[in-house]
């Protein structure tokens, strides 16, 4: 058998996109929007934690995390050390995948579809096309519709969220300002997205056309969001969440769950803080429980006040 044959055989395999496998007798559909968005539904009400080692991942799982984000450096270190931030070593990500039974996410650079294909090939459960890494393309995001693995993307407002969903994102998170421990930007972005959805709900159909143009979003997604009264996909908060109270605040604003990046493993007692943030996310409406879980957590991560950050050091402006 010639090499040429093998190459042809491989290139004949269609690139993901919804397709059916025949296994046994029933027809199985894989990689559909229902499945991609469905996994995010299972994460709702939960906490997704950044981890840089298999040990961190086990601490997160033990604390009750619903998923982990496998990274080489947490955003606070990326921010401090500078340089180009890229996809993590796939070997490290695989070690983390082997260490836990909960879903494992990993980040690719904005527009870097080859990093995304590599992450898909090793079988990560979700890809975060993330502004925390240095963008690889200043104009285009990854065409996420063409992947079997689902994507989560950051957004600062409804237009950005719907553009990402149009490209195939199956989950949206606020961008916040990662690695600062300052929740103010996550609040700003969540309020923007949810506030704009509230406006949409009372808008007349004819006004939606102008509105879609104004926010730079496809009309069909604007209309769908208005009809649903929420985003067509799950919305999480991310970027600067450092305490149980921060997580509960975001849940009160109306997000479906939270990502915690540097906030846990850059704090004095990661295991205790991780457990406390998980409990605060479930019991966000019970202030006695919140008071209880907020006690004796040791030092929080050292924060950076976002208003003191020069514009060129802000990550949230990345992405278009």
């Amino acid at each position: 058998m010639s090499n040429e044959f093998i190459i042809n055989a491989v290139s004949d395999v269609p690139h993901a996109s919804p397709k059916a496998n025949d296994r046994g007798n029933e027809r199985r559909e894989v990689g559909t929007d229902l499945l991609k968005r469905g996994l995010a539904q299972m994460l709702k009400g939960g906490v997704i934690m950044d981890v840089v080692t298999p040990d961190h991942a086990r601490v997160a799982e033990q604390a009750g995390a619903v998923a982990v984000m496998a990274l080489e450096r947490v955003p606070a270190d990326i921010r401090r050390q500078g340089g180009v931030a890229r996809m993590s070593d796939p070997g490290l990500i695989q070690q983390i995948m082997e260490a836990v039974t909960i879903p494992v996410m990993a980040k690719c650079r904005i527009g870097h579809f080859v990093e995304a294909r590599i992450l898909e090939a090793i079988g990560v459960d979700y890809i975060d096309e993330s502004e925390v890494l240095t963008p690889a393309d200043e104009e285009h995001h990854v065409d996420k519709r063409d992947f079997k693995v689902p994507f989560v993307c950051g957004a600062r407002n409804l237009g950005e969220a719907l553009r990402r969903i149009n490209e195939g994102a199956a989950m949206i998170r606020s961008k916040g300002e990662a690695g600062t421990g300052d929740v103010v930007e996550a609040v700003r972005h969540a309020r923007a997205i949810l506030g704009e959805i509230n406006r949409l709900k009372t808008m007349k159909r004819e006004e939606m056309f102008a509105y879609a143009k104004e926010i730079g979003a496809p009309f069909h997604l604007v209309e769908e969001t208005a009809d649903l009264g929420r985003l067509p996909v799950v919305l999480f908060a991310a970027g600067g969440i450092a305490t149980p109270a921060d997580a509960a605040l975001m849940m009160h604003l109306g997000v479906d769950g939270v990502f915690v990046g540097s906030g846990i493993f850059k704090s004095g007692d990661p295991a205790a803080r991780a457990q406390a943030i998980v409990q605060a996310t479930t019991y966000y409406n019970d202030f006695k429980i919140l008071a209880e879980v907020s006690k004796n957590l040791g030092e929080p991560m050292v924060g950076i006040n976002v208003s003191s950050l020069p514009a060129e050091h802000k990550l949230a402006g990345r992405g278009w």
Partner: protein
Amino acid sequence: MKVGILALQGDFIEHAHMLRRIGHESVEVRLPQHLDGLEALILPGGESTTFGRLATRYGLIEPLRRFIYSGKPVWGTCAGLIFLAKDVGRDQVTLGVMDIRVARNAFGRQVDSFVAPLNVKGLSGGPFTGVFIRAPVIESVAPHVEVLCTLADGTIVAARQDHMLATSFHPELTDDPRLHALFLGLQLPTADHAVF
């Protein structure tokens, strides 16, 4: 019928929407006192390790067991199925009330998640859309557990033990309320099925 849905985490809202569609209100269960006065209980999809952690911390394990042993209908979907099982093949907190052995993430990772048409015993009106997301399977059942659905290769994906129902898949993510109706006994006139 007053139905509770375990709301520690996961897709409990989707179950509530489905119940509302067929005319039933539901309440969210996060603490033991939320079980008071409930007539049935749903354990939703989500992460079973997170359920175990929070249920232990907030004293829910024994009250949930007592609720189920009292004979009230309970249904676990995906993570909820794992949470009902006696044996999950690893050291993990579950309620341990259903005589089934379960394998978690049995089909692989998210890229192996799939949708397939299913024939569920006792469900009329044609195949049911099975949504399997990082789904568990039932590896074996005790003799008194009734298998309700298998894949073509024989893998068990739904079972019933008296008043306990377990499905590997997510009926709450479809727009088909037949299994929710079945669970609440709405379509089951015979005494044989009255335990639902």
